[in-house]
Each structure stands twice: as C-alpha cells, then as structure tokens.
C-alpha cells in the first residue's frame, strides 16, 4: 500500500509499505478515508523529537471505514464509519477508567524511553515516534487499530467525513483545554495559537459559557478565520502588546483562563525569541516555552493556565515566581479523546460545532510532501492540509 513516510529531517515521501496485519485479537484494520496534518507533526519533521526511523509512517488524526476486525472486537463491524482517536487506549486500566485516556498504562510498547525522560510513560500514539510506541501512522491507505473497541468511535449518520475527521484530535484536544482549564460561565478566556486546536479551544470556551474569548497569533489569515467562524476577538502579537491588550480587555484583571495551544517551537518577537532560539540550538533547553510564559504572566491572580501544546523536555526561564505568587493553577495533558469524542460528534451533528473550515487544502496522499510544506511554511492560507485516500 501507499503511505507517507518520514525519511529524515524535513524529508517526507510517499512510499510502498507492507499492508498492516491483525497482530492482536482486539485489533482492527481501518481503510483510511481522510487524514490530516497536525502542528505536532512538525516536531517530527524538524527532528525535534528524535525517536524516528527512516520509513516510519506518520499521521495521527484520521477517520475511515472498518475493513477487518479481530476476534476480540465486539463494537465495530466491517463497513462501519469510524473516527479513530490519535491515542491508543486499552479502556480498562485505572487511567482509562478515570477518563485520563492519554495516560493509558498498556499501550506504549517502548515504556522505558518516556519513563526515563518524564518519570512515567503515557499511552501510545499513531505515527508519533518510537518513544510513543512505534505505531504506524494514518497517512496511509490502511491502519492497524489496537484495542479497537476503545480506540475508535463510530460516526453518527448526520456527520460527514470531513467534519468527523477533526474529532480525532484537534476538537477533543481543544475541548479538553477549556474543560480541564476550568472555563465557567462569564469567564474571559485567552487562547494562544489560532491553528485548529486553538480555534477548537476557543469554540469550546464559548460553548462552556465564556463571556469573552480572545485568540492570539501572528498570522492574520488564521485570526480572521477564527473571528469569522466563531466571532472571537483577536490579537496579532506581531504588532500589538499582548499584555496591554489583555489588561484592557479584562478591566486590568487578566484572563480568568489562559489556554496555550502553540507548543515547543513557539515564535515571538523581540529578544526573548532570540534567547530561546540560541538556547535551543545549543541544546541548553529542548523547548521554546514562549507562549506558556506569556500565559502565566498575563493570567489573572488565582486564574488557570492549561498547556495544550506539545512539549518534550526541559525549558528555561519558567516563571515559577509568577505561578506561585499569583496563586495560579497550571495544568496540561495530551488529549483524553475518548472522554469527549462521542459528545463532540453529537455537537457537530447538531451544528453548534463547526470544523470543516479548518480543511483549507484537500489533496490526494500523493501530494503529501507538498501538504506538509504548505502547512509548515504557513503558505497559501494553509490551516490544515487534509489527505484524501
């Protein structure tokens, strides 16, 4: 079959790879219909996450049709349309039972790497390096889905393929940021990042009752899209002081909830960005936490900061003093998708949650390398490239 493979730093190519097989009783094979790029893939492309082998199939946000099920699969049948969460989950460990699905104990086949790095291993992810299990990704004609009854979710009749696609990752990730960030009716919420996850976090905040939502980015076309789709207020940090704008918008208090949806390769203006660039190039820090610093600094006293962006290791100049003295709650997580996806599909079906505007570039898998190039360089108004199979 054809698949888009990581072949080295900034080198992805469509290759012929063996078809996936059922390896466990609870596996199923999904024929992929749509698979999209994600901002976190860029950390693989740039070599920021070094646990890749040439020939690894990438991609983790996808939907498709069940092609084959193992004897231990009871909830899906061949022909069913499913959205597959990017996190593979067993559904029965303590973490899964407590709806902390991305922390599943039983799905990372290489637990030693992340146990040494982070003290414990999160669950496995499709197409996201051998540190996260070494599972093949979704930019392929077929994907093996382990623990299929728990990892994949049926798509209701009223939801089209493209809308369902984003329920695999960006929608539940964004929702989780607003939910676990503690957004309440009347809150003012600031979201750093106007990509798919940031936009979904902003919409989730609205649906959870936020009175005002402000989205921060440096790309006008993304901010415009967020404003048009959801009526949020926007701040372009390239020409505006984010802190001053947030103080003005909140009567001098600062946002009640700050959601960071940028991640470890954040950009900024001014000396802070140069500092982090130098430190990361010299390997004196692994990640550039610019948006996290801003979120903590600008959050109101006693407020809440949720880190949705992907981080890998160690950061410098973390504002611990601000966190402690302002009495903040700081929390982060990879997405606990299975907790939210059924509810989110219902909201998509009802029309209150719109997602398909995110797919700015729909193309065949054969153009996968071009899709990543557009996405990475933010060219041609690209928010998400979607591969059609």
């Amino acid at each position, binding site marked *: 079959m054809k698949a888009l493979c990581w072949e080295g730093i900034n080198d992805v190519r469509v290759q012929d790879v063996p078809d996936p097989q059922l390896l466990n009783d609870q596996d199923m094979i999904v024929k992929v219909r749509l698979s999209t790029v994600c901002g976190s893939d860029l950390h693989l492309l740039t070599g920021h996450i070094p646990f890749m082998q040439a020939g690894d199939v990438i991609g983790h946000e996808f939907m498709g049709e069940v092609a084959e099920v193992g004897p231990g699969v009871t909830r899906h049948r061949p022909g069913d349309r499913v959205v597959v969460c990017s996190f593979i989950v067993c559904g029965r460990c303590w973490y899964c*039972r407590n709806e902390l699905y991305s922390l599943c104990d039983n799905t990372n*086949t290489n637990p030693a790497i992340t146990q040494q790095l982070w003290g414990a291993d999160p669950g496995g992810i499709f197409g996201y390096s051998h540190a996260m299990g070494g599972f*093949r990704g979704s930019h392929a004609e077929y994907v093996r889905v382990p623990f299929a009854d728990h990892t994949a979710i049926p798509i209701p009749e009223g939801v089209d393929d493209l809308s369902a696609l984003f329920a695999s990752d960006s929608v539940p990730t964004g929702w989780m940021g607003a939910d676990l960030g503690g957004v309440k009716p009347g809150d003012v919420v600031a979201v750093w990042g106007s990509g798919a996850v940031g936009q979904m976090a902003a919409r989730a905040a609205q649906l959870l009752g936020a009175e005002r939502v402000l989205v921060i980015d440096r790309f006008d076309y993304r901010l415009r899209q967020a404003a048009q789709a959801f009526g949020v207020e926007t701040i372009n940090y390239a020409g505006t002081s984010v802190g001053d704008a947030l103080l003005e918008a909140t009567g001098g208090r600062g946002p009640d909830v700050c959601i960071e949806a940028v991640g470890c390769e954040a950009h900024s203006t001014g000396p802070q960005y140069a500092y982090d660039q130098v430190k990361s190039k010299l390997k004196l820090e692994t990640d550039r936490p610019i948006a996290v610093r801003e979120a903590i600094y600008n959050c109101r006293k006693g407020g809440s900061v949720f880190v949705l962006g992907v981080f890998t290791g160690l950061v410098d100049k973390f504002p611990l003093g601000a966190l402690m003295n302002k009495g903040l709650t700081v929390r982060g997580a990879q997405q606990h998708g299975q907790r939210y996806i059924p509810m989110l599909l219902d909201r998509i079906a009802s029309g209150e949650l719109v997602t398909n505007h995110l797919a700015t570039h729909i193309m065949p898998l054969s153009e996968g390398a071009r899709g990543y190039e557009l996405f990475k360089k933010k060219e041609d108004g690209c928010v998400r490239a979607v591969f059609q199979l």
Partner: protein
Amino acid sequence: MLLAAGAVTVAAVARRRRRAPDERDRYLAVTVNRAPDEVQSSLPEDLARWRDRVEIRIRPAAGDKGTELSVQPSEQVSRHELRLALRRAKAVLEAGEVVQSDTAPTHPGPMGKALRLVTSRAGGGGRL
C-alpha cells in the same frame, strides 16, 4: 534529545550500580486495576513462571486503585526479565492481551538502527 536520553540512561545505570545492598533488594511493582483475589487467582504465566525463584507480593492498593503486584529481585532472574514480566502480566490482567508494536520500517537509517538498540530493550527497562 537522544543524547540527553542516553545521558539519563547512563546516569540511571551508574546510580543502580552504586546502590546499597538493601536498595538492590527493593521490590519492583506495578498496580493492576483488578481486585487482589482476581490477581491472585489468575496470575498470568509471564509472571507466574518465576514464582519459584522470586518472591511475588500481592496486596490491595491504597485508595481503591486495584492491586499492587510486586516482585523482589533475586540473583536468579534479571531485573530486565522481571520488569518485562510485570508489565506483561499487568496488561493481560487489565486488557486481556499485550499490545504488539507494528512491523518496523525496512530501511531505518543509522540513527534508526541506534534507536532500535534502545527500543529492543525498552520493554524491560525504565523506572519500574
């Protein structure tokens, strides 16, 4: 980061070698999300086969978190083998099977080959 991970691993190995004798005897443990009597009655073969050579301890976990399943390492079984057995036993008890990783790429490249050395041991490594 691979270098950082390597350094962390080397440091961890060095720390283990410096351990006092009583530290080397410290139990390796996982918590299984099943009741103690269920764990006792259906201990998977991956772990049960070491029963004659290591002490296996089963006791309720605090806060209704299931069962703590622990083994005390001995000279007869490597810690690597015991970590692997504990993880596999936990997976079988909780999820019914041990998930297998997908087939590896055919041309991993030099860095990929180095990474394979790490991942080939990863099932029995780590902090467990």
